[in-house]
């Protein structure tokens, strides 16, 4: 593997395929019921016990404003680690299914087209073709920044 290529884990959400840097993936596990966090934003489903640490679980469908799906035995949680302002954090994302690990050449990654709003593309590192599909490569640090709450947010919601 050369320096300018990387391995990407791809997963499916509805009809779309997304990819994340495989080095960020801590674990892939099946769905188990989570413990709800009071006053959490709706896409934060709750917390799970991941080998002794408490890990929040985020529903990617809700995050991307996709139609909600039922959680079933085949629903998968990908546990990722991100760099946030407060250091390294682990969190899990609920996805429909994990597809594949692909090698991606950096040259293949194209910038996302301007869709009019920065928010829509902020967390996208680029688009890339894999076989005959388009994979959306996610920047998970950006994706999760701002998702994790601080006290004032949750207070505002309660009020």
């Amino acid at each position: 593997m050369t320096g300018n290529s990387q391995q990407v884990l791809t997963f499916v959400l509805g009809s779309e395929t997304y990819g994340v840097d495989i080095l960020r993936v801590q674990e892939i596990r099946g769905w188990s019921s989570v413990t709800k966090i009071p006053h959490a934003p709706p896409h934060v489903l709750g917390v799970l016990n991941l080998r002794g640490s408490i890990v929040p679980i985020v529903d990617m469908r809700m995050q991307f404003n996709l139609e909600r799906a039922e959680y079933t035995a085949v629903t998968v949680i990908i546990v990722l680690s991100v760099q946030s302002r407060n250091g390294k954090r682990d969190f899990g994302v609920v996805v429909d299914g994990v597809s594949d690990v692909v090698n991606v050449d950096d040259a293949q990654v194209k910038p996302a087209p301007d869709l009019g709003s920065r928010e829509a593309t902020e967390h996208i590192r680029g688009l890339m073709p894999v076989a005959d599909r388009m994979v959306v490569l996610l920047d998970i640090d950006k994706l999760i920044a701002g998702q994790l709450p601080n006290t004032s947010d949750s207070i505002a919601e309660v009020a």
Partner: protein
Amino acid sequence: MDLDLAQFHDSFFEESFEALDGMEAALLGLDVGAPDPERVNGIFRVAHSIKGGAGMFGFKDVASFTHTLETLLDELRSGRMAVTREISDKLLLSVDVMRAMLTSVQRKEPVDMQKVADLQFDLEMIVAQGAGAAPAAAAPPAPAAPAVAAAPTSAPASAGAAATSASVPSAGTSGAGPSRWVIDFKALPELLLRGNDPIAIFASLSELGKLTVNANLDAVPRLRSIDAERCYLTWHLELESDCPREQVDAAFEWAAVDCELAVNRVEAGGSQVAAPTANTAAPVANAASGTPVATPAPAVVGGAPAQTSAAATTGATGAGAAAAAGGSAQTSATAAAGAPVAGAAATGGASAQNSATAPGDATAASAPATTSAPATTSAPATTSASATTSAPATTSAPATAGAAAQPATPAPAGGAAPKAVEAKEPAKGGEHSSIRVSIEKIDELINTVGELVITQAMLSELGRKLDGSVAEQFRSGLNQLERNMRELQESVMRVRMLPISFTFSRFPRMVRDLAQRLNKQIELKMTGEQTELDKTVLEKIGDPLVHLVRNSIDHGIESPEARVKAGKSPTGIVHLDACHRGGHIAVEIRDDGNGLDKNRILAKARSRGLVGPNDVLTDDQVHELIFMPGFSTAEKTTDVSGRGVGMDVVRRNVKELGGKIEISSELGKGSRFIITLPLTLAIVDGQSVSVGSETYIVPLTSIIESLQLQPQSVNRLSGRGEVFSFRGDYLPIVRLHELFGIEPRATALHEGLIVVAEGDGRRIGLFVDELLGQQQVVIKSMEANYGPVDGVAGATILGDGSVALILDLSGLIRVATRTARAA
């Protein structure tokens, strides 16, 4: 090979801070006058190892300061100087300064050099006064030096040293120019071997302006270990000149590789360095000329007693006298050293050395010195020297005689004492051995063990369902596993436990300083220092304790006069005690001072409108008043306490730790503050409750009672909030399912349960579906991967591997109040 030393910085700092704590404790225990040699040795070693480390890592400021400190300590250690109150105060200050320096260096912040320089100067002064009085100590240093060029006073006496006297006359004196160059010139031992001559350097410098030269003789070893060809000196030069830096540097051009050089410009009016240390470059010059090494011998020897006595006088008669003594002593010594005939003096001196170093002798010498005129102080110093020359220098004949008698037979006591000092390597900490492990590693271990416990619980659950012939065996194996797990968990938890002495150790110093500042006599008693508690709790309990002890000293203990008047001993007692009480630790701060004055507290509270004029309060309620923010009965605000910030903070801190604080006090007899804390923050005793499908843990310390309400005992307030009567109070009902947005199993109050719980001094009735059971749970942080959640203190992992949130009642009540207000 590039070795990255930075990786060792952390452990250097950590060890240094620890060592400083030890040094501080040792200093506090040091008896003025009769120091325990082992203690002094220990203190010396701390300074020495910090110096070594700092030097190795290139923290020059620290190294330089510790070097000075080490020099002084070496004088004390060898018994050449006596430990006076002044010195021990300065040494304590040094601990502070070193701590501050190390902290600054660690944080990569600039060091406050002014403070350091001031203290360093003070320390040098102390050494100089000691050494000055006893040129002895100073003279030998010079590699081969006959001449100790001394302070101006010595000039006439020391013919040989004349050329080298303290200030080298400058060729073109530029007058008191506005700026000076301050040069610290530290020669490497090889300086002389490489053919460099400091004298030549100084001469060329003096052409630039008025040059003042001070030599520092601290590094000079004992005579028998002196190597005549090595340079042991460092110089502090001050050049009054407006010349550019290049010219200064040029003077050191040839020596540059053989020395450490610090050149700084000081504007006029900057701190002036006096010249008591004065010994000029002369010795080196002479060294170069190859004067026999033996000559200085007498001086070394005579030095010891003189030093001690000088130190004694310093305290007693003031610096001036000591300086005078030093001056004259030096004169004589110089003369002695300069004398070509060393023989007689040397023998006399050599034996005198033995007696001199004996602490017994030292004190004996100092005793008369203090009582008689300052001039006499130098007497012992000159003893050996006077044999050869300098009668005029010393005025005291008897002392000389006494000393003369000594040389022949070394005092046995004297001989024994120093030996003992060197022989005993104080075994600090006894047979305890330990290793340093990072907290993360331990937490990782605790985590893993926690996981194991859960897995084991799962297996046990499974084992119960098994049938068959091996099932019984399997179950007994599981039982064994369970026992072992419990032991393992306990031992792992114990790893994080530290004795409370880590926190207590800061008090002796604090009490001493405060007592001194407030002119009170206070004895600090500490018991139960070995009581262990979790490191996190330990760290957080420090500040509240400091506050309480400070309060006791400032407000509690009366002045000695008042105490005597009240029929008590003038010395007040502050007692710190720690002990285990059930799953908790109780820390008690007790004093025999005046106690809390209830009437005054009440009057103050009434005047501030906190209490109605006719309200009658119980003792506890009155005591409760002192926890009000901003409440203080002190008549005047001191820098110690009295601003009324504090007790509320103390209580808040204690509460945050899940503890509580109680007061009992008797007017005129003293007061007691008892802090009860959980042993660890990692585990909490909790009551599991269920709401809908969720399980929550309510810390047992927050729970007052659980009860089932009858529908008729609930009242609705203005159509909204629900209240119920509990022991005479009306408490609001907080429905957890509403607050947390969960689908409950029971909505009617009589179908579920009310948990009466307390947080931040307020009580609520928490409505839940049912109580599940009590258990100890391991607290996991929610913030590590998520963030803070209002009303939730953390999470824990239940036996089945699922997560349950631990409620934080204070937060919960805040949220509930806010919600109610918004609704």
